[in-house]
C-alpha cells in the first residue's frame, strides 16, 4: 500500500469525513488520495485560516474534520488556532508538510522551518514529527488522541519521510 492510501485509510478509519487542504508539492499525492476517497468531503481552501473556519463549522455540525497544509501556514493561522480552535476547545488534526528540512532545495523554506517547532511549542500544540517511513504507524493513535483531547494537533512530515516512498 502506498503512503498516501495508508494515510487516507487512517483518516477514514477514524471517521474523518471532512478534509480541507491548501496544497504543497510534498502533499500532492495525499491530496489526490483525499480527493479520490468516496468517504471524505474534500474542500480546498484558499488560505489555511479559512480552512480552519470550515473545519470548526463541520465539527459543530457533527463531522470530524482535518486540515492538510504546509508549515508556512503556522505563520498564517496563529490567531485562528488560538481564538477559535483552542478557545472553543475543538479537535483538529493538522497534517503538515515540514518544508525546509533535509533535502529541501528552496532556501526560503528554511526560514519558516527554523520557527515551526518553536511556534507550535509556544502554542502548546501537541506535535509529532514523521521522519522515517515507519513513523506513519503512529498516525492512527495520533488521530484518536486528537479527538480524545479536543485540541489542534500537529503532524509534521518532512522530505525524508515523503521521499521514502
Amino acid at each position, binding site marked *: 500500500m502506498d503512503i498516501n492510501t495508508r494515510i487516507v485509510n487512517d483518516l477514514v478509519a477514524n471517521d474523518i469525513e471532512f478534509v480541507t487542504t491548501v496544497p504543497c508539492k510534498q502533499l500532492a499525492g495525499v491530496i489526490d488520495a483525499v480527493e479520490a476517497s468516496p468517504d471524505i468531503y474534500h474542500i480546498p481552501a484558499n488560505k489555511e*485560516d479559512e480552512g*480552519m*473556519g*470550515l473545519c470548526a*463549522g463541520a465539527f*459543530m*455540525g*457533527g*463531522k470530524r474534520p482535518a486540515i492538510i497544509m504546509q508549515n508556512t501556514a503556522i505563520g498564517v493561522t496563529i490567531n485562528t488556532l488560538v*481564538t477559535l480552535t483552542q478557545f472553543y476547545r475543538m479537535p483538529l488534526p493538522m497534517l503538515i508538510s515540514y518544508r525546509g528540512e533535509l533535502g529541501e532545495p528552496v532556501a526560503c523554506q528554511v526560514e519558516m522551518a527554523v520557527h515551526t517547532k518553536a511556534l507550535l511549542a509556544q502554542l502548546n500544540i501537541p506535535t509529532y514529527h514523521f521522519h522515517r517511513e515507519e513513523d506513519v504507524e503512529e498516525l492512527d493513535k495520533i488521530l484518536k488522541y486528537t479527538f480524545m483531547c479536543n485540541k489542534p494537533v500537529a503532524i509534521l512530515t518532512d522530505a525524508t519521510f515523503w521521499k521514502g516512498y
Partner: protein
Amino acid sequence: MIRSDILRELAPTLADHLVICNIGLPSQELHLIDDRATNFYMLGTMGLASSIGLGLALAQDKKVISIDGDGSVLTNFGTLPTIANNVADNFILLIIDNGSYGSTGDQPTYAGKKTSLAAVASACGCETVVECSAEDTVQAVKDAIASDKMTIIVSKCESGNIKVPVITMDPVTIRDRFMGAVKA
C-alpha cells in the same frame, strides 16, 4: 437603519435557524436582543463567520445563516470562491454592509467606496446574490429561507453602533450549547 435595527427586526426570523454571528458588536447586539442556543457567537477570529457557517451547512441539513460584515468579508475574501464552488442549499450568507469597520470605530471600508461585494460574489460564481436596502433585509432573508437555494445577501445600511455589553459567556459553553441545538 443601522445594523442593530436590522438585527432587532430580523430576530424573529432567525429564531428557528442556526446562526453563526460575526465577532464584536454584531454578536454582542444579537446576544442582547435575542440570546438563543441556536446562536454561535464569535468572540474572536475576524473574518471566519462565513467559513464556519459553510462548514456547518455542509456537515448537516438544518438551515444555517451566517451574519457577516463587509469588513469581515474583505478580511477573508477567499471565502467567496469557496462558497461558490461548494454549494450548500441550506446556507445563507447575510453580509450587513455598513461600509465601515463598526467594532473598531467606524473606519471606512472599501465596500463603502468603489467595491461592490454583490458584484464580487457574483464574479466568484455565487449563483444567487441579492443586494437590498436595510429596510428590505427581513424579506430578503425570508425569501432566501423559502427558496432552499444557497443565497448571498448584501444588506446596505448606515454605519453606527449602540452601546452593548461584551459577552461574558465562556466559549466552551457557547459551543456546547450550540452543538446541543444542532443535534436537537
